[in-house]
Each structure stands twice: as C-alpha cells, then as structure tokens.
C-alpha cells in the first residue's frame, strides 16, 4: 500500500496502524470497564466486577504498549523518546491513575468492599483520563497531530488510502483486546469455582 511521502516522518507514518489503535483500544476497553463498574453499582453482581477489572487490566496493557511504541516512534521523529509532549505526559498520568486502581483493589481484602470502592474509583479514573488525553493536549502545544497548533489528522490521516487500513486496524486490535478479556474472565470464573469447591 502506498502511504503519503512526508519529510521527517518518512515511512514511520505507517506506525499509525499500530501505535494509534493501541490508544483507541485502551480508551474503548476503559469505556466498557466503566460501563460494567456502573452496572455493578446499580446491581451488585460479581460477574460485572470481574468483567470491569479484566477490561481495565487489558486496557492498561494496551496503554503500556502504546506508550512504548510511542517512545520508539518519538525517538526517531521528534529526537528523543521522552519529549515532554503534553499528550505523552497526560497519557503517562492517566496510566498511573489506572495503576492506582489496581493498587486500591490489591489493598482491600473484603470482596464486596473491594468491588464497590474500585467501581467508584473506576468512574473517577475514566473521568480524569478523558481531559488528560483529549482536552489538555489540545489547549497546549502538542506535537501530536490534531493538537495545539498542529492541523488535525488531515496531514496524512484524511488520506483515504491510509484510512482504508487504519479503521479496520483499530477494530481488529480492539477485538483482539476483547478476546484477551474474555480469556481472562473465563480464567477468573474457573479459578473461583475451584476455590469454592475446595471449601
């Protein structure tokens, strides 16, 4: 597939099919995680809690991969892996907020209390992530396309050739994420059943 020929970016423009879907996947997985957290608060079923945690878990894995790929990409296009870009910093803080979610879960031993508190925290974590990743970088100067003084995706993403691959790639990576979530949820339910039968 032909990709637009741009200075500095050169062929790395193709990293768009891998780096960006990681973040899209993370946001979508976190969104579903919040959905199940709210569902748990409305109707405290254990299944909702398990789904909520595992969605957040895989979302965080996607986020870490997005961070590492972004650092490699930045090293050869922006000049250094950690550039102090507002979006990069915001994403790092958002990931730390989600790490704290797992710390919170690990620190509570009562099942119901853990599920309830972490569901509430999950809503706050999602609510902080959105401005950190989508709003603050747009108010400041960010090197990411579509932020600060930079034009939107139109430099290359409005290119229909790239869109034809980019959107299916986003959907495909998201489905891979959902598949890992389902594996982990199944693992958790089997584990709990074994523990119950031991009692």
């Amino acid at each position: 597939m032909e990709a637009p020929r741009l200075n500095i970016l050169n062929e790395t423009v193709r990293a768009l099919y891998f780096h960006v879907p990681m973040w899209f996947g993370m946001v979508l997985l976190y969104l579903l995680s919040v959905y199940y957290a709210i569902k748990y608060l409305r109707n405290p079923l254990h299944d909702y809690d398990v789904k909520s945690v595992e969605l957040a878990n895989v979302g965080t894995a996607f986020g870490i991969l997005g961070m590492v790929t972004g650092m490699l990409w930045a090293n050869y296009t922006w000049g250094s892996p950690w550039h102090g870009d507002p979006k990069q910093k915001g994403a790092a803080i958002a990931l730390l907020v989600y790490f704290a979610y797992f710390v919170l879960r690990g620190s509570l031993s009562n099942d119901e209390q853990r599920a309830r508190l972490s569901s509430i925290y999950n809503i706050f974590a999602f609510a902080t992530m959105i401005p950190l990743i989508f709003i603050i970088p747009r108010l400041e100067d960010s090197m990411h396309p579509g932020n600060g003084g930079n034009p939107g995706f139109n430099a290359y993403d409005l290119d229909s050739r790239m869109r034809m691959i980019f959107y299916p790639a986003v959907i495909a990576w998201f489905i891979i994420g959902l598949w890992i979530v389902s594996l982990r949820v199944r693992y958790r339910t089997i584990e709990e059943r074994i523990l119950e039968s031991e009692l």
Partner: protein
Amino acid sequence: MKKIVYFFLLMTISMIANAQHAEMADVMRSNGKIYVVVGIILIVLTGLVTYLFLLDRKITKLENKLSDKR
C-alpha cells in the same frame, strides 16, 4: 590527571562536532526509517505474546490444582 580529563573532554567535544556533520548511518534511520515501523510492530507483538504467556502460566497452575484434587 587534569590533563587526561581535558583530553577526553576535548575528544568528546570533537566527536559531537563531527557527528553533527555526519550522515546518520544507523539502521533505524536508513530506508526511510522503515525499521522504526518494524520495531513498533515487534514491540506490540512481543508485548501481547508475553501477556498471553503469563495467562498461559496461570492456567497451567489451575490445571495442576485440579489434577492434585483427583
């Protein structure tokens, strides 16, 4: 001692100065930086494979627990 320090300092300065003029020849910048894309794909794949490998280990532990009981 001081002379040696100055010597190395001068050497690094001249190396940096030379580097600025030199065409970067490392792999990641050759061929239109396509190896950066290769690297990114490898990071994503190894990351996901490690993640699945850890899950595999957890499942093996569960299987062992089951076989212990029977």
